[in-house]
């Protein structure tokens, strides 16, 4: 029972961390956008059979620094700052002990750019893309705390036309959705060292985007992340994440154009996270993203910091069903 609870707690933690960081709901990167993908959850491991996991998270991101290649620049920059507030919901369900399905949705409360030379700020809001993911536990050894999980998913837009406000079209960078479909694959590796209450795990994800109606394609994204998780006190965990992101150029009519040369980047971030677990079923986490290395194509606004909080709960639907049958 103790092992089961502990295992559950770790799985919950992974789940939250995965989504808080790895769902690139808007991987847009124009010269004026916030650039970085911003997701929020982390588990990539599979769920136990008949377990329903509900995860709600909120994320805030702030950007006010332009980069040209790997250095800051203030030349010919048109934005003072940009920020967004986003909330997401993820539902995961363990279909079998090795197969898990997930649905995710997200909503931008505001996605704002403040202009530098005009007294004006422009804001978009609305649903981001939705996602459907299937994950399969290819190699699981609970006794040794080893897990290798692979997954694949589809991202779909809730709208395919750009958003308009009061008769004016919002620019690409503040659209809440990519207005296009995408697919992704992921790989999760985990190794636990229970004797020292430590875990090391890695999440790796590749996103491929399809073109929108205007034949604009957001660049593919590769994210690799290494986590070290250590139990601090009872039910309390500290996690340190080192994440590398690469985003390809965006494409217009299947080529890098004058309009897309300021897209694409390399970004390395460090993310300290604190997580509190209750009875192995509830979990609350807080984290912040701190970029430590940036290399951007052209001239782009880059993320300065982001923070996120997440609440997650597991429901054991299998057990409930058995009780109902027994009654």
């Amino acid at each position, binding site marked *: 029972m103790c092992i089961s609870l502990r295992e559950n707690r770790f799985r919950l933690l992974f789940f939250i961390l995965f989504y808080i960081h790895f769902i690139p709901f808007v991987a847009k990167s*124009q*010269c*004026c956008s916030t650039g970085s993908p911003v997701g929020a959850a982390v588990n990539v491991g599979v769920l136990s059979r008949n377990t329903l996991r509900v995860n709600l998270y909120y994320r805030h991101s702030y950007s006010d620094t332009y980069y040209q290649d790997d250095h800051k620049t203030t030349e*010919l*920059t*048109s*934005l003072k700052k940009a920020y967004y507030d986003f909330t997401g919901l993820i539902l995961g369900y363990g279909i079998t002990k090795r197969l898990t399905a997930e649905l995710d949705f997200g909503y931008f409360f505001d996605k704002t*750019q403040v*202009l*530098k*030379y*005009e007294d*004006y700020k*422009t804001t978009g809001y609305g649903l981001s893309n939705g996602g459907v993911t299937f994950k399969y536990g290819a190699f699981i050894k609970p006794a040794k705390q080893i897990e290798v999980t692979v997954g694949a998913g589809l991202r779909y837009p809730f709208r395919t036309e*750009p958003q*308009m406000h*009061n*008769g*004016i*079209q919002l*620019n*690409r960078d503040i*659209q809440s959705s990519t207005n296009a479909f995408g697919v992704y694959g992921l790989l999760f590796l985990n190794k636990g060292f229970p004797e020292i209450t430590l875990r090391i795990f890695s999440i790796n994800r590749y996103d491929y985007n399809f073109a929108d109606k*205007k034949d*604009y394609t957001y660049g593919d994204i590769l994210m690799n992340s290494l986590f070290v998780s250590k139990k601090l006190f009872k039910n309390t965990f500290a996690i340190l994440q080192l994440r590398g992101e690469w985003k390809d150029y965006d494409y*217009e009519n299947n080529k890098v154009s*004058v*309009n897309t*040369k*300021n897209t694409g980047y390399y970004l390395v971030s460090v993310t300290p996270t604190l997580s509190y677990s209750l009875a192995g079923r509830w979990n609350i986490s807080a984290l912040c993203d701190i970029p430590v290395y940036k290399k951007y194509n*052209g*001239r782009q606004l880059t993320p300065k910091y982001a923070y996120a909080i997440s609440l997650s709960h597991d429901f054991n639907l299998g057990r409930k069903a058995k009780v109902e049958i027994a009654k």
Partner: protein
Amino acid sequence: MKRTLYALCLVVLVMAAACKKSDSTDPGTGATPFSFTSLVAQDTTILLTGAANITAHATGDGLTFTWTEENGYGTFIPNGSNPANVQWTICHAARFKIICEAKDKYNHSESKYVYISSRE
């Protein structure tokens, strides 16, 4: 009973048809004729730190304007008191097609465009 029901349905249908809202696309005799005469940019070349001032000249009743850039680039800054006038700014150098659609309350509409170039 069936006949009564059929008759009742018929009466309801006739009443619904009679109550149909008059066609708002009919301008009538007192309407201002719709005309979208021009779309003018004060400057057709702007610096990246600047903004283009664009005005639509149109006449008609209950005019509304829709402003887009062909591929969704740049930021439109509305003129709160005059929807026929906007400023437009962009963060990279290229040539852009700004499109304005004017529409009156009778659903007459027309689009015009103007090219704006931005440079560093």
